[in-house]
């Protein structure tokens, strides 16, 4: 009996010395202006790592170890933590970060070091164009505009539309332009395409002009705080039709500012916690149990990004950068935000969900495939 125990202990010891933890870098803004985004993302990443470790590790009994750093939503802070993770901690891969402007600073560092990186939520097209080691888990800006147009035309049966967007913000402008392109391609008519200055609170001039064209639907790809005001003023001017927008709507504040004006509103998003797929419901249940809150899209994307990375390392069976990169390219996996494959620019080809505002609540409406 003693002998058996001794052998077992020896085996464990030997195994342990071989089965070094695989270090994965995690980056997100857990303090600063985008703090809630960073915290959700970090929670998602942590959950994915814990799940893989509970299942017995990544490969050969080796477990993942998440080393998380805060970029504060600041590009120069991002460069510091990126270098720290690669040079000091010797991570084999990086999952991060939230904001495009910070990812754009980190991506060249990852690319030069040959450390594969996947950003959970940076939607700016340029991020993955930095090089072949850079991936992302979310869809890019143009896609949302296209999906919004498809939904307005096919689902809402709109034949004329108008768009209003922030002149000083590439995100809202990009969505609006792609919406217009797709809506016209489908045979619809865009009766007005209006910009507004950043920071303004009065949108009535633009909305009055929009309503003169009598659109069936108004596309508002702004952030929630502007959307609330625009919706209120549009309703005040007598518009009764549906409003459509992008993932900038995803905040509990939207209904607080917009009140009943945002009813009959729809927006494209990465995921919905009401999606009936088992993988989603399982994720929501576990997340709630662990963090005591409903997971938002950022939590889901943080989870997905980490999951995709760990899956790639497992399939690579190696911690070499080039091997992980090749495995990432071959990804075909079902995760919380849908089934993911990468295109030639390492952007995921995935579905989007449409969420409806109904009685002040976000309600899952449908999933739109690319």
């Amino acid at each position, binding site marked *: 009996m003693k002998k058996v125990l001794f052998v077992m202990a020896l085996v464990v010891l030997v195994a342990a010395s071989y089965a070094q933890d695989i270090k994965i870098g995690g980056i997100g803004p857990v303090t600063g202006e985008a703090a809630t985004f960073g915290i959700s993302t970090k929670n998602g990443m942590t959950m994915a790592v814990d799940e893989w470790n509970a299942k017995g590790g990544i490969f050969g009994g080796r477990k993942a170890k998440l080393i998380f750093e805060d970029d504060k939503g600041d590009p120069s802070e991002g460069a510091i933590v990126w270098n720290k993770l690669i040079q000091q901690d010797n991570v084999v891969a990086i999952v991060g970060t939230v904001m495009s402007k910070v990812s754009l600073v980190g991506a060249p560092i990852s690319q030069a070091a040959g450390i594969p990186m996947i950003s959970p939520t940076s939607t700016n097209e340029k991020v993955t164009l930095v090089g072949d080691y850079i991936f992302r888990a979310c869809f890019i800006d143009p896609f949302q505009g296209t999906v919004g147009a498809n939904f307005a035309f096919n689902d809402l049966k709109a034949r004329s539309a108008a768009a209003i967007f922030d002149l000083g913000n590439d995100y809202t402008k990009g969505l609006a332009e792609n919406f217009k392109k797709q809506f016209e391609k489908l045979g619809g008519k865009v009766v007005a395409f209006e*910009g507004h200055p950043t920071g303004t609170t009065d949108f009535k001039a633009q909305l009055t002009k929009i309503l003169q064209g009598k659109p069936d639907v108004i596309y508002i790809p702004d952030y929630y705080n502007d959307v609330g005001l625009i919706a209120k003023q549009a309703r005040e001017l007598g518009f009764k039709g549906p409003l459509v927008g992008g993932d900038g709507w995803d905040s509990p504040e939207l209904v607080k500012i917009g009140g009943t004006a945002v009813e009959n509103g729809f927006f494209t998003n990465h995921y919905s916690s009401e999606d009936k797929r088992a993988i989603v419901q399982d994720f929501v249940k576990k997340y709630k149990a662990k963090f005591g809150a409903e997971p938002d899209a950022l939590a889901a994307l943080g989870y997905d990004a980490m999951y995709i990375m760990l899956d790639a390392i497992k399939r690579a069976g190696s911690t070499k950068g080039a091997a992980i990169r090749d495995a990432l390219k071959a990804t075909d996996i079902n995760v919380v935000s849908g089934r993911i494959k990468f295109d030639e620019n390492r952007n995921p080809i995935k579905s989007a969900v449409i969420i409806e505002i109904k009685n002040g609540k976000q309600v899952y409406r449908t999933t739109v495939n690319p």
Partner: protein
Amino acid sequence: MGSIFSLQQILNGLQLGSIYALIALGYTMVYGIVRLINFAHGDFFMIGAYAAYGSFYMFNALVAGRSGTLAFLVLLAAMIGGASIAYLTNKFAYKPLRYKPKLSSLITAIGVSMFIEYFFSALPAIGPSYRSFPDIIVRKEIRLGNAVISNLVIIDLAVAAILMVGLTLLVRKTTLGKAMRAVSQDKDAARLMGIDIEKVISFTFMVGGAFAGAAGLLAGMTYPRIFPYMGILPGLKAFIAAVLGGIGNIPGAMLGAYIMGIAETFASAYNSLIGEGIAFAILILVLLIRPRGLLGEKIADKI
């Protein structure tokens, strides 16, 4: 259909102009009396909005259901809030610098503005995030031909009009108004006549602050989203309106503000992609032709 000069757009412009007018008056009065561009004035507007926000929740239960009384109390609170911050700013920041170089006061004004913004966003009760402003009055819309007039448009226009008439009467008909005009013309002579000029200056600040506070309430009701930096842009535009009308001149500030509101609306309606650029180009043109502003003549009572 179709035209940018529709009744609806005129109403939109007048509504925006009313809010600018109430802010612009404070700029112009303070400039008239102490020759100071009070850059913190936009922040008095913000304080007014928050005073309205806070008092709404205080009084809501008290006068349950009587929205008219409630609105009046909230307006009063907003005006008192604006007046108090204006009083304090003058007392602690501007008064000690009254007879120092003008540039010191100007820089102080910018400092005060930033202080108010950052201090209030650091206060836990206010915080840096957006807050949704409650519906103090139930919105109603009236259809008039192609135009839709909401009761808010009427309220904005009416409150601005009543306050402006009140101010004109105050300046023209009361002893205090006479003192204000006197101080604006010649401080030394006014002092020799036994006018307590500091008191008059302080009062002028408070009236300006009260008007900005009222504008804060109207803006909160019309554009129901408030945050500590909400005063910057309207403050700047109202300042431009005051300059356009001829700074130091009360009717000028009102005229400038309505021109500003309407020009902004028409420009956005004409081509929103160039948008406000057009509005500001018009302003530059007007100032090139009339550098004193529209009503900025060398008239006697310049306050």
